[in-house]
């Protein structure tokens, strides 16, 4: 059983209210080394077999049609989940 990870973030030019809130909270908590923050989505899709190049292509397709909203978001990563990852 394999897993594909897809990361989606707001386009850099788009306002990211979540990221803004996170950045503000980090600063108030004293994490001042972090000068900016953005918040996006991470999807994990499970497949029955291995994560082949073909599966990744399908995942890219799914990302483009469903998981990301191309008007405001970029799909920043589509990759097989490394073995070590949790779950």
């Amino acid at each position, binding site marked *: 059983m394999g897993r594909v990870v897809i990361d989606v973030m707001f386009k850099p030019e788009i306002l990211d*209210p*979540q990221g803004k*809130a*996170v950045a*503000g*909270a980090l600063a*108030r908590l004293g994490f001042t080394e972090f000068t900016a923050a953005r*918040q996006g989505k991470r999807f994990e899709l499970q497949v029955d077999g291995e994560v082949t190049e073909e599966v990744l292509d399908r995942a890219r397709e799914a990302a483009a049609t469903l998981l990301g909203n191309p008007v405001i978001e970029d799909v920043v990563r589509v990759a097989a989940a490394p073995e070590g990852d949790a779950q």
Partner: protein
Amino acid sequence: MRIGVVTFPGSLDEVDAARAVRLAGGEAVALWHGDDDLHGVDAVVLPGGFSYGDYLRCGAIARFAPVMRSVIRWAGPPESASPGLPVLGICNGFQVLCESHLLPGALVRNDHRKFVCRDQRLRIERNNTRWTSRYGDGEEIVVPLKNGEGGFVADVPTLDHLESEGRVVARYLGGNPNGSYRDIAGVSNATGTVVGLMPHPEHAVEEGFGPDRDAAGRLTNTDGLRFFTSVLEGVLTA
């Protein structure tokens, strides 16, 4: 009796909570998130709303507000056997209480992924808390429910613990509106001083401004008022 009502940036229902306190016969004291002084109040209400926009997780940022440092200190640890400051967290306030670990569990996105606003039937499962003493044991009430992230979740041992200790304060009837585990609408700490509730009793305290009907089917509804009279009674007798 003085009941503090906290305003965080993004709080919405603090006007309603304060009105409910007044209608119940108490004095509502406005508390500001940035001030850790509780001004000697006898109890605290954390109101509904979207504190800090609820952008990260609901209640996650509000939990670190200066006022919460004091609330957490005076409320005491959740499993403690000695009663602390009575605190009622409604909706966003419930989320803040969970994020603050004053109550177990967490509240996640509704299972249907939509905001829902409706009149909700509840059963008061526990009337020996500071906020529910004026209700009958197992009494049914109708109050508004309105949330986008109202699904109460916790791991099984925690849920079992809550059930066996009788700490489920209210349960949804007539359909689970958000996917809450075991239809849980509200829980309390061990002593019943701290209560978190997803639905909004403060929106059912004045005739003509709440749900059309009460639990008995009458065309008037003040079913929520007794949350506020309960705590006043407790304060008087304490």
